[in-house]
């Protein structure tokens, strides 16, 4: 399936860019006329994935983070967040609720939230090479709304 529309953004792993990434994703999703709740879910999922790239992907260094957004004809929105940082040694373990390698200020609930707010969450990661998180959500059809 070919996307109807697609954007790709690249930014440095500075925490100030977390808000930027959320807003950019919300702007892109606005083309699909989402509900307020759907918009909140999308922003939250983006925030979690981008924060992970910044905090865990590049814990001590600055690196490149990429955010790709794709919109499909069947009202599916795909969000891909990629980093070229540390990588995840055990992806299954990382997905578990409360599992965190971060300190007190992390909750270990990031992946749990991404999974509950999106229809599908795919994680590809290689230690030392980086992480790619691809998430999909099919938005509700709104009578009278734009395609």
């Amino acid at each position, binding site marked *: 399936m070919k996307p109807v529309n697609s954007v790709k953004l690249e930014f440095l792993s500075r*925490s*100030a860019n*977390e*808000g930027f990434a*959320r807003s950019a994703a919300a702007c892109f999703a606005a083309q699909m006329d989402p509900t*307020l*709740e759907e918009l*909140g*879910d999308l*922003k*939250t999922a983006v*925030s*979690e994935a981008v*924060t992970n790239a*910044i*905090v865990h992907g590049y814990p001590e260094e600055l690196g490149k983070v990429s955010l790709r957004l794709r919109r499909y004809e069947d009202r599916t929105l795909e969000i891909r967040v990629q980093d070229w940082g540390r990588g995840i040694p055990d992806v299954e373990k990382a997905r578990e*609720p409360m599992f965190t390698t971060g300190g*007190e*200020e*992390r*909750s270990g*609930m*990031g992946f*749990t*939230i991404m999974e*509950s*707010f999106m229809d599908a969450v795919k994680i590809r990661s290689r230690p030392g090479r980086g992480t790619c998180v691809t998430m999909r959500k099919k938005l509700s059809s709104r009578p009278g709304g734009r395609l």
Partner: protein
Amino acid sequence: MELTCRSRSCKTRWKLTGEIDHHRAQALSRELEREVSTRLPGELVLDFSGVTFMDSSGIALVLRASRLMEELGGRLRLESVPGQALRVLKAAGIHRRVELGEE
């Protein structure tokens, strides 16, 4: 710092505003610790009415507040939590571990 503090006897009310994410989490956490350790409140109310966005960094903050109040033998209550933040708290099961809602 978008955080205001008003203390009435042993009850401290915090009005949190804006977006609670990792970018702001460290500053908020330091503020929380300072306020709790200087005021030693019997009850801490986190007023979420001005929160426009929250992700799992907010969960860590709420859990930190919960632990600090537990150490003091006091209560923690979350008030006026908007829809988006509530969905995040519920997805993490936190709504079952802390008191929610008005008195």
